[in-house]
């Protein structure tokens, strides 16, 4: 079969001209005979755990931790600032080095583990500074952020359609969360209720509703797709 536009002869397995995308029409008999493709469907596997790099970085982290410990006990006979430094190394380890050990690191599990690490770090800071803000403020704040992040990941990863609804919904939830955060701030620090969060809620709600509408109104959706595609 020849392409009517380019004038080239096309091989039998092609349904469109690969040069100009013009459709080629065959009879059914021809399609049944010449379905064979030039290449198989299999793709090479790419994912693998980077264990050698992970072990080198683990060794370096352990080395840094032990140097800090030795230094603190030699200088002050107690841990002092070393605690913050060691926990910071631990936090970086959980964020960046831990994922290297696994072939596939589930983003939901990693988000939860990262937030647990942050909460433990804050608990240590609270304990060291003698504050009493952890249970009433830092812990709820971490849980709210973790919940929002996990919800966003689940929606983005597992729901393939309705991008505008997902984005709109997430933005509205973020806005409402800010009110909750300000409530815990009020409980802990006796600050006035709902001052800054109202700005966040109003902005997020307006923008969220706009995105929800964009999901419903097709011309608006097409316009946004055209102007903001990545």
């Amino acid at each position, binding site marked *: 079969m020849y392409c009517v536009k380019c004038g*080239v002869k*096309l091989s039998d397995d092609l349904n469109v001209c690969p040069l100009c995308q013009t459709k080629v029409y065959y009879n059914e008999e021809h399609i049944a005979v010449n379905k064979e*493709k*030039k*290449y198989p469907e*299999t*793709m*090479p596997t790419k994912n693998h755990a980077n264990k050698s790099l992970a072990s080198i970085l683990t060794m370096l982290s352990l080395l840094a931790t032990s140097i800090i410990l030795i230094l603190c006990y030699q200088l002050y006979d107690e841990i002092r600032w070393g605690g913050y430094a060691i926990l910071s190394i631990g936090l970086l380890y959980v964020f960046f080095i831990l994922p290297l050990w696994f072939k596939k690191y589930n983003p939901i599990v990693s988000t939860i583990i990262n937030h647990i690490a942050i909460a433990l770090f804050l608990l240590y800071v609270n304990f060291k500074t003698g504050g009493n803000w952890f249970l009433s403020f830092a812990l709820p704040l971490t849980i709210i952020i973790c919940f929002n992040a996990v919800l966003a990941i689940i929606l983005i990863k597992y729901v393939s359609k309705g991008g505008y609804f997902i984005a709109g919904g997430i933005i509205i939830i973020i806005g409402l969360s800010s009110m909750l955060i300000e409530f815990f701030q009020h409980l802990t620090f006796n600050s006035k209720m709902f001052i800054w969060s109202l700005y966040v809620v109003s902005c997020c709600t307006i923008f969220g509703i706009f995105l929800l509408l964009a999901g419903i109104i097709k011309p608006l959706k097409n316009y946004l797709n055209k102007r903001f595609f990545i």
Partner: protein
Amino acid sequence: MSKKWYRLDTAALLFPAVMNKNWSNAFRIEATINHEVDPFSLQKAVDDLKVRFPSFYVGLRSGVFWSYLQEMEETPKVMSDFAYPLTFMSSRELKKSCIRILYYKNRIAVEFFHAITDGTGGNVYFCSLLARYLEIKFDIEIGKSPFVVNHDEPVSEEELEDSFYKYTNNYPASRKEAKSYQLKGTRSKNDCFTLITGIIETDKLKQLSKNYNCTITVFLTAVMIESLIEMQKQNRFHHLQKQVKITIPINLRKLYGSKTVRNFVLPINVGVNPKKGDYSLAELCKSIASQFDYEITPQNMASRIASNVNPQKNILLQIAPLPVKRFVLGAVYYHSGVLTSSLNISNLGVIKLPEEMDPFVERIEFIISPQKNNINNCSVSSYKNHTYININRNIVESELERIFFSKLVELGLPVTIESN
């Protein structure tokens, strides 16, 4: 027993430095045969060639100062082919093996990481592998040719040498060159390459090239430059137009009589500046042919070799750790190699197999991968009066291919198109 290892040859030093997540600088030679491939005979053939081609059975390793090639413990295992040719070779894979031997239905393909050999060296290995496979499968004796070597013979030192060091001079050529027109397009998903193959009868192509008083390589380069000029005209104002240059790798074996199966190829850039005025195809052919004649002389190429060999002798570069070297080499390559050309055309030439093989082999093709900036790359090979022009791209748009092949059709060449 300690494993044998090889230093990278002068051209190969570049490839580990410039490889990135999406581009491993590999090329592929594939043959379609007249029966379904028997993987056991193919594996036996791969094993048998280890003694004759030791520099192909290696993995890429990193030393403190230089990368090197280390002999593999086992020969590579034959694998079923993938959905796209030349899928990415990761450093992890290259550590184990720098070649992939693939089969699918009645096709055998070998993908080579460029650091171990060039197109000509790879073709000698591929044709010898094909011959050995047919010998095992059908219990026949196959005569030898320039492309098929005897697997029993021991390998000579000459075949494993870095010929660049042998044929250099003391007058390095300048790398300075103006930037060329770079094609742009929408990147393909998953970084897969789209391959379009144009098949033309070699006799007709040869005759047409003769009408323009040039070789097939010069003729195809001229048509490609004409296509690129047309594309640039569509996309850029006249005063913003850049020169259109194409990189052509030159096989130096013929020029110096080297027998190495490792890299011995040097690229030259040929082209024109469209700002100077319009060119007809005949004028382009004449200009490209004269650029070829001027550049490809033993003296000029020796100067080009010197500009690659001399920096290696610099003590500062020698003692620089590998990551620093990779960074420097990558930057030099990007500015003097990638930005100065619009795309590559690599012509493997006419492949002549021993006549015992001809009834079994239907076609032989040569494919090179596109690069980050040179989003289209073109490779050419001829076998049994058919010339296979493979244009590989990592973008969605097929405008260049459309213009190029339409021009060939307009010139009276019947073109058959295939694609993956």
